[in-house]
């Protein structure tokens, strides 16, 4: 142990901050693995890892000079998360979660949870603000498909650059304060609610859309870029008919803030979610909508691809919405079939260099299987068909192995 510390000190003196972060992650993993099992009110260690391969069928592309790499992040991707939760007592706990993915190491959680009563709970620090149903299980070991639904896509969709990802890429992590709670009316009806104030999504002053890379990057520091907190919340109602092994959940979410440093460009996101479980059959559906204010600039006619509207003015708003419907069918004790239908739409002007149109649309059909091989390991295989109205259609296959740590 002492030798390990000496080595660590020597490395930290000479290495870059990235190497230091790698070392910190390795130390957390080593300590966690050596930790004694959780006993009573103690530490909880949890984690997951998924390694996946995305294959884009290039034969569909008539222009052979454009490789799949230019349209998607094909190839191998690994997503790792490790989480440490400490329960001081039944009212106070802390949670830290470190993630590794396409863009290196990120802090997914670092917050204190204070529960006064079930109906009043505070979360302060860095966390996933309550929005929608899918973010509750965004961890790849928790959902049955290899990738995320299009409204929550964070870089696995085809034409990700042209579309600028989904409506609200998951996980959305931010710094702030959330107040929420849950209340049961009898034993069948659960009401959940949460409201928060966080730093918000980011972009630049001359932007026409949120910059999701900037939003989670530490290069502009993990602070609010315009001193204007973003507010939001979620309310959901759950009907639990345990005798019939049936559960229904209906939720609504909203978020509003400014994304540019001058705090002049607004964004508003609204969502609705639905979940149904009848015995072992599950159905999930969500709809998200984001209205983003754009900076028209000094000369919109040269900046944007399309001219003014019928009123002679350029519309300063762009609308992006998305949906998914996903059904889960257990067919064998260790095997489940997944069917998903999702899509994205974008309405509004685009920059002159954009390949999107004024009304862009993509629909995706996914059929997949999820097989449990034991030891908390799952093998997932999905086939996806993209139907674009601005580009040629795409056929994609993804294979992933996910494990619970």
């Amino acid at each position, binding site marked *: 142990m002492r030798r390990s510390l000496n080595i660590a000190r020597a490395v930290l003196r000479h290495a870059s901050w990235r190497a230091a972060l790698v070392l910190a992650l390795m130390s957390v993993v080593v300590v966690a693995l050596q930790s004694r099992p*959780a006993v009573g009110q103690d530490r909880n260690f949890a984690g997951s890892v998924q390694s996946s391969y995305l294959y884009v069928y290039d034969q569909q592309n008539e222009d052979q000079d454009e490789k799949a790499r230019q349209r998607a992040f094909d190839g191998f991707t690994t997503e790792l998360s490790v989480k440490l939760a400490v329960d001081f007592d039944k009212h106070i706990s802390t949670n830290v979660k470190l993630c590794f993915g396409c863009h290196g190491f990120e802090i997914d959680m670092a917050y204190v949870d204070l529960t006064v009563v079930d109906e009043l709970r505070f979360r302060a620090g860095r966390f996933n603000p309550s929005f929608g149903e899918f973010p509750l299980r965004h961890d790849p070991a928790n959902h049955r498909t290899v990738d995320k639904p299009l409204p929550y896509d964070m870089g696995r969709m085809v034409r990700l650059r042209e579309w600028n990802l989904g409506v609200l890429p998951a996980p959305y992590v931010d710094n702030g304060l959330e107040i929420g709670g849950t209340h049961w009316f009898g034993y069948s009806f659960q009401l959940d609610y949460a409201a928060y104030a966080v730093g918000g999504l980011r972009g630049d002053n001359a932007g026409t859309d949120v910059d999701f890379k900037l939003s989670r990057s530490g290069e502009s520091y993990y602070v609010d870029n315009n001193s204007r907190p973003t507010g939001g919340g979620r309310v959901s109602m759950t009907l639990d008919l345990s005798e019939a092994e049936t559960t229904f959940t209906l939720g609504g979410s909203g978020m509003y803030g400014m994304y540019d440093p001058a705090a002049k460009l607004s964004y508003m996101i609204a969502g609705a979610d639905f979940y149904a479980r009848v015995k072992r059959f599950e159905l999930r559906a969500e709809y998200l909508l984001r209205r983003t204010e754009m900076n028209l600039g000094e000369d919109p006619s040269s900046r944007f691809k399309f001219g003014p509207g019928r009123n002679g003015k350029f519309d300063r708003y762009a609308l992006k919405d998305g949906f998914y419907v996903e059904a*889960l069918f257990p067919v064998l004790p260790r095997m489940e079939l997944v069917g998903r239908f999702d899509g994205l739409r974008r309405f509004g002007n685009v920059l002159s260099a954009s390949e999107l149109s004024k009304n862009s649309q993509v629909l995706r059909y996914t059929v997949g299987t999820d097989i449990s091989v034991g*030891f908390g390991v799952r093998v997932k295989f999905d086939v996806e068909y993209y139907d674009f109205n601005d580009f040629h259609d795409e056929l994609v296959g993804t294979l992933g192995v996910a494990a619970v740590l």
Partner: protein
Amino acid sequence: MTIDLARALSALIVLGFTLSGGCGGAKPSESTVYIDVQKIPLELRDEYASFAQNCSKCHGLSRALNAPVTDPKHWDLYVARMMRTAGSAISPKEQPVILRFLHWYTLGYDKAGGMPGEASATDEYTPPAEPEAFPALSAEPGAVASPPAMQEPAQSQKPAADPVTHPASEEAQDVTQTTAGEGQ
């Protein structure tokens, strides 16, 4: 658009219901093989069913079953936290039911005797006394919500008589052997 979306989606859903009804319409304990059901005492089968139904909505059962928990009191805080997750559908009525199974699983499952069908030890498994209803955190902030201490079962136990034959579970063997970390 190359496919009739409404018909395709409807067919998908109908197929799902058909497959679910044919292969998995029964309770989770009969066809969701995450644990060797034969090792669960008959008097805890409903508790297991409640655990399987409630604790697989957001993640797989392996998160809980693979957790290296040695003190059943740990589950009290853990399940209380899961109850506060939005849409968990784990009611105060279900909480003690789930905890009864988890307490037994922590103390008794690994010590249950033999493979399914094998003759077991002479000691009978003694189920715990009927636990009191656990108050929700808001109902009794000062109370510790936990079931009565479970009696540790015998080193091995006689498999409960079960007219329904359940197939041997490779997953169950995996679960007893794993030492992976616990769920979130």
